[in-house]
């Protein structure tokens, strides 16, 4: 039976492994927003506005849940049994809403070891089968470093219904400068650092981790 998009769990929705780091979660979120935004190239001609909006609402809900350690902790036990790679062998304590092994002493670090085994990359065709939306091998290849493209931040701002003026007021960046950050319209590579710092500040205003960005945007171009 095909699940509706609304019924997909947040990990499948964002193509994330169960042990995704906060950086992975943020990267997957940005990628999804860039893809399903009404100006997103990736869904152009493939999806209508209604489907895009529905997906973006779910993506936002997924991000707001998985980025928050408390919400994530409450959410995970609800979906983990539905993941074939998660072979539950430990008792789940309703009282603490934790797995028994999570309560093990810190010295043993058993939970960490188990998570490391569970998240080993697997290739399709290795006898383990694959999930409906992307396998672990594919997920493993997601970039660990991610650059805050102005274009991506603009899309995040727009899907949250924020105007440039809203952001300008919140962050103390002028709307004109925000526009140039979103367009990445800085004149030359010598302005790369300035642009990156501006984008980090913008990202922080949107509640994203400012240290997630990397390098100069100019070094990202293949022909430079």
């Amino acid at each position, binding site marked *: *039976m*095909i699940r*509706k*998009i609304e019924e997909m769990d947040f990990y499948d929705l964002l*193509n994330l492994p169960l042990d995704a780091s906060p950086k992975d979660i943020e990267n997957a979120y940005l*990628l*999804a927003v*860039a*893809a*399903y935004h009404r100006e*997103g*190239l*990736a*869904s*152009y*001609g*493939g*999806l*209508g506005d*209604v*489907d895009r909006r529905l*997906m973006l609402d779910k993506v936002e809900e997924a991000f707001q849940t998985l980025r928050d350690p408390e919400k994530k902790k409450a959410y995970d036990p609800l979906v983990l049994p539905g993941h074939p790679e998660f072979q539950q062998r430990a008792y789940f304590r309703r009282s603490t809403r934790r797995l028994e092994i999570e309560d093990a002493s810190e010295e043993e670090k058993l939970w960490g070891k188990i998570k490391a085994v569970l998240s080993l990359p697997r290739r399709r065709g290795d006898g383990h089968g694959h999930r*409906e*939306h*992307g396998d672990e091998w*594919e997920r493993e290849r*997601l970039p660990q470093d991610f*650059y805050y*493209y102005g*274009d991506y931040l603009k899309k995040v701002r727009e899907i949250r219904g924020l105007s440039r003026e809203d952001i300008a007021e919140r962050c103390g960046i002028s709307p004109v400068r925000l526009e140039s950050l979103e367009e990445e319209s800085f004149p030359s590579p010598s302005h790369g650092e300035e642009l990156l710092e501006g984008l980090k500040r913008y990202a922080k205003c949107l509640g994203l981790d400012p240290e997630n960005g990397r390098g100069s945007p100019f070094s*990202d*171009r*293949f*022909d430079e």
Partner: protein
Amino acid sequence: MSEYSKHPKAIWAIGGGKGGTGKTFLAANLAIALSVERGDVVAVDADLGGPNLHTLLGVRENGRDLGDFVRNEVTRLEDIALPTSFPGLRLIRGSENTLFLANLNHYRKLKLIRQIKSLPTRGVVIDLGTGSAYNTLDLFLTASPGVLVVTPEPTAIENAYLFLKSCALRVLKAYARYFGIRDFDQKMSQWLEYPSATLRKFMEIFSASDGSAGQVLTAALNNFKVYLVVNKARDRKDVHLGRSIVDVVRKYFLIDMDLLGTVPQDERVHWSLKKFSPFIFEHPESEVSKAIRSMAERLSLESPLIKPEERPSSQA
């Protein structure tokens, strides 16, 4: 049993819907890279509207072509495979005869597909033309996997989705007919009246009304393997674009798509064309050539050649 019949043959078709995305460029250079990987590959120019794979492979001599085969002037497809200047690569030229398309009726198309499948070689690369005509779709579906080429432009992506949707419908219809699924054509026709409705939505509704048939058809889509190549990429956002298209296709078309690779934009492609020399040969150390070799390696690894001595003996 001939040596080749012992080898499982791989067929890769390069398609994409829109013209100018670099399908023929990729087909020519992939064919060369694959011929290095596998030792014996045949490139088939099945661009039924405007064949020019021979130009990109630097083959300037005229000879027999697909038109001769379709007109029954040649019985076996392998007899029109021309040598190229690359060891291990032969070429079946496309027909420049304008009557070729008219001559490719259903029976002859099936004959062509059958003979492509039985070509005595270790790999076949099919270069397809633009558009989503049935002949093009059926040749794409012959391959396992098909390779879809897009450029980071809305028109190319829009046409790619149309191409995929047309392929998916062709697959679903074939399965529905084979398994005798009733009312499928009628439901499909109703769905097609709403162009914004996704294939996933259709399958959700169809599965709700007929669970077992829905399972069969969903499995058919899941087993339809397609690779995506983003060509003429200018920055890392275009690499992300490939991942995002794969995500849209898996979620909304239910097709098993993977990203095969991203080929960066390189102005030297234009000059290699003018020199009638394949790019991978002219600039072997360029990022473009590295990307194509990497794709060839992955495609070849996924369709391994089995040496006769490694096969279990029938006497055992």
